């Protein structure tokens, strides 16, 4: 017998999974998750999740972008090879601004994009949750809740009982 990863239950409507999540949160579990085909409004609170850390990556990207834009224009125009064009100064933050502005947005967008992957630990080529027999429905029109065996409060029978109590169907032990 392979190692157990956790137990998973199926729910039919957004309202069912929403209320189920609130109850699991209140029962004090930490290592558990909800799988839905689309983001459910208010689910972060129902699960008791903290605010996402993605904005930090955006901010860092944006700051690096702005200074990179200003720096390259200064380095290339004023420091490395200065050339008089149209009697204008070698460097000025005014005419460099559009370049720095675009660089800010570019690197902030990269920060956001990769920040989303880093915070989510994606890409991932395999995850145990996909062993669930009803998995293809989870990205279509059904909703699932999984409590992982790594959770300190995990007890096989009690978890099974809890999942049944909160209205879960098709409860199954997931192999790692």
């Amino acid at each position, binding site marked *: 017998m392979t190692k157990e990863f956790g137990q998973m239950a199926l729910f039919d*409507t*957004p*309202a069912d*999974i*929403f209320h189920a999540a609130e109850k699991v949160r209140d029962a004090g579990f930490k290592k558990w*998750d*909800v*799988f*839905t*085909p*689309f*983001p*459910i*409004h*208010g*689910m*972060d609170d*129902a*699960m008791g*999740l903290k605010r*996402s850390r*993605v*904005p930090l990556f*955006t901010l860092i990207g944006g700051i690096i972008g702005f200074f990179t*834009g200003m720096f*390259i224009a200064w380095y*290339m*125009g004023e420091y*490395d*090879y200065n050339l008089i*064009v149209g009697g*204008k100064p070698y460097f000025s933050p005014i005419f460099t601004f*559009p*370049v720095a*502005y*675009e*660089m800010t*947005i*570019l690197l*902030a*967008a990269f920060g*956001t*994009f990769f*920040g*989303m992957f880093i*915070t*989510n630990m*994606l*890409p*991932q*080529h*395999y*995850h145990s*949750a996909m062993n669930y027999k009803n*998995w*293809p429905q*989870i*990205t*279509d*029109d059904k909703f699932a809740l999984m409590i992982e065996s790594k959770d300190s409060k995990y007890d096989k029978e009690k978890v099974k009982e809890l999942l049944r109590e909160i209205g879960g169907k098709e409860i199954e032990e997931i192999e790692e």
Partner: protein
Amino acid sequence: MTNLEQSTTERPAILDEVKPAELPRRELVANNRSFGWITDIICGIVEQKTPTWWWVCFIISGFIATFTGMGLLYLVSTGVGVWGLKNPFGWGWAIVNFVFWIGIGHAGTLISAILCLLRQKWRTSINRAAEAMTIFAVMCAGIFPLFHVGRVWFAWWLFPLPNSNSIWPNFRSPLEWDVFAVSTYFTVSLLFWYMGMIPDLATIRDRAKSKIRKIAYGVLALGWRGSNRHWSNYEMAYLLLAGLSTPLVLSVHTIVSFDFAAANLPGWHTTIFPPYFVAGAIFSGFGMVLTLLLPLRAIYGLHDLITQYHIDCMCKIVLATGSMVGYAYAMEFFIAWYGANPYEGFAFVNRAFGPYAWAYWIMISCNVISPHLFWFKKIRENTWFVWIVSIIVNVGMWFERFVITVTSLANDYLPSSWDYFSPTIVDIFTFFGTFGFFSVLFLLFLRFLPLMAFAEIKAVSPQADPHKH
């Protein structure tokens, strides 16, 4: 005063007397369709056997695209002179077409970013296709300045890369700003488009039957599993990208307009250009969205997802931005007179009544008059009519760029350098072919990627509300 105090605590009494009308929110998914139905219809487009019409369109588009290939081949082997570019026309059709295509792209970003920030939920049915349109339009746009530089094999000098001459790009030039603006715009639009597609690609992966499909969509979906811990970060990232794309889309056409406005030429040197260009870009972009989506709606039977409400909203945006463009045309004339600069005054009189008057009046009738048909509900409900107007809008916007670019260059300060610009057959071939290139890319998108952001559509459909019983 008593009324004001009351209103904070209880419902004002006046409301019982006047009986305000109940205005229910329009449903964004008609006929109470289930989540499963939405998945089936959109995934079905990718999973069904390739339809015959698709092959017919693909082959025709591919053939049209070869015109661009031939045009560019001839140009590279001969020189940019074959584009009808000579003094005083340094910028002919090349720049007209560049601005035309890049403008079309703007509606995609407007729908995906600005309407997202404004919580316009109707955007969910059309944003994916509009973003795809943006990316392909920017690719078409990029062709023109790339080859307009003359020696295309040195086009990489546009970027700040070390080269053997040790000379760097000139950051004082709006043309260099444009390099940064357009390449940033393309990159960020691509990231936004791809990130939005990940949950939908995961659905296609989970439905895939054949091994090749499983692997291909599995790789593209990057292991997405719809975990709410992921959705939380994903939604934050999506919102941030929308927030970043909003100033980006406004800046891109602003910087494109700087290419003109920062020059001293009469007719170009005006401060109204940035807002006027942005409004025009959104106007033409929505025209293109309607041109593309109305036939798809009919072919794939998407009437429950792109409802009359969606068409109404798009028509109203065309009407609003068309009016802004009309206002800008009028204001340009006013300022030319009010500014009392004889050169500026001449440039505008010459536009309307000079040798290019034919182009000017095509522009006015397509851009200023035709969108005002959308005031009428009967017209907005006639899909054929809307489709035809959407094409007229884009014809008009092409002429706008032609009028701005060519009339100012043709008749500037010195009458001795005046001339009349005519495109060559190479110009016409190259531009005509880009429509084929665009269609080829769009057809491939239709065949292999989810046409609509169905995860988002499900989230805005009535049954998605967790507090509804």
